[in-house]
């Protein structure tokens, strides 16, 4: 099965049954809370015991936010899937919830938020789920609004699953353009399954405090996850963990192919999503002779 981002837009993919399946899988609950704990650690909030006002972007059913609550913080959660938020309500999540699309900007007053996390969500912004969606414009709106609503010096930690290096670079580029300083911390880089990327950002110009923390397992030690054979494949898929054998998309082709215009449009679309696409030449989409 392909990763969720390739199947349907998030508000469609996370429908009622998927939202429930997601939140009742003990494997997912465990993975998400472990990632959230790590994100909170990387957020490096002052160790003064004072609760902070945080954001959880793509909060879903509240699994990631629960970690923030456990640490005593208040949070506002954003999600585009009503079904996921309904499950969050059922679970009596402590955070305040908003039905909103992060790609449209966060809509908050400037400088009021103490920090933000986002767990397994921002890769969705690289998709163009509607013809009017331009991933670049949406990344720009998202990071721009995020930067503005944070107090100076506040941090953001976004754990994400990029499809390829280009996508990851695209996300980082738009964060930097918005004014953030920081970079990607990779935990367990040598493990196909446990590997996790965290974009760690600081609001404001680089300072001594903005040096990037080290990833876990950088020196080659493996995460215990790798020996875990009992893993719930289904769960991995729902969260968006790299799958090993992605099914090929079914090709629907007309008898005469789709024509050059269609191909050029498709290539442009793929480029906008950050994929590596060969340049257009006079050979692109040309008719091919048939040989017997």
């Amino acid at each position: 099965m392909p990763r969720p981002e390739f199947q349907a837009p998030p508000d469609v993919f996370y429908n009622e049954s998927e939202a429930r399946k997601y939140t009742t899988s003990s494997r997912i609950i465990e993975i998400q809370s472990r990632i959230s704990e790590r994100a909170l650690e990387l957020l490096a909030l002052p160790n003064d015991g004072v609760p902070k006002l945080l954001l959880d972007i793509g909060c879903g059913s509240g699994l990631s936010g629960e970690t923030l609550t456990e640490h005593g913080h208040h949070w506002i959660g954003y999600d585009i899937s009503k079904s996921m938020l309904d499950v969050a309500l059922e679970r009596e999540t402590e955070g305040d919830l908003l039905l909103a699309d992060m790609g449209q900007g966060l809509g908050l007053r400037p400088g009021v938020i103490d920090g933000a996390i986002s767990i397994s969500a921002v890769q969705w912004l690289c998709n163009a789920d509607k013809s009017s969606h331009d991933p670049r414009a949406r990344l720009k709106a998202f990071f721009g609004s995020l930067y503005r609503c944070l107090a100076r010096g506040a941090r953001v930690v976004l754990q994400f699953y990029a499809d390829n290096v280009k996508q990851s670079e695209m996300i980082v580029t738009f964060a930097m353009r918005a004014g953030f300083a920081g970079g990607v911390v990779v935990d367990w880089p040598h493990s196909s399954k446990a590997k996790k990327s965290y974009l760690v950002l600081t609001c404001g110009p680089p300072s001594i405090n903005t040096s990037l923390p080290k990833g876990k397992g950088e020196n080659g030690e493996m995460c215990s996850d790798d020996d875990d054979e009992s893993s719930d494949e289904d769960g991995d898929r729902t969260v968006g963990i790299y799958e090993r054998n992605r099914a090929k998309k079914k090709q629907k082709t007309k008898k005469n192919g789709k024509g050059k215009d269609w191909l050029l449009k498709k290539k442009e679309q793929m480029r906008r999503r950050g994929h590596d696409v060969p340049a257009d030449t006079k050979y692109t989409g040309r008719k091919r002779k048939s040989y017997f």
Partner: protein
Amino acid sequence: MRLLTHNMLASNVRGATTGYPLKLEASNWCTKEVELNADFIRGLLPKIDWRALVAATRALGLPDLLPDEQPPEEEIFAKGAADVEGSAIRRIHHALLEIHVQQGSLTCPDTNRSFPIDKGIPNMMLHEDEV
């Protein structure tokens, strides 16, 4: 939606200048007790738009919960104030964190676009042509 969130939220619909404060209307709201943390309120208060907070409490039909002007910090954070029924800090805490708007709407002051609140969740989704 807590009034804390209302106080931070602005509309970013196309054509809005600040989109703030969102006009609150509520047909149903409830309260849920939360432990008071004076340090949290202390950090938060400078970021609170007092007038918007007062307007929100009045929109809920609570004319006496908060005064027009923010009381001085010495009064709010006076020793032992948190233990005194009806003290400024208790009222502020109650207004920001214990009131939940369940049903109602938020209206953008610049464009009059209204965002419904259903089961406590504001729907801030914009249509394609509003982005």
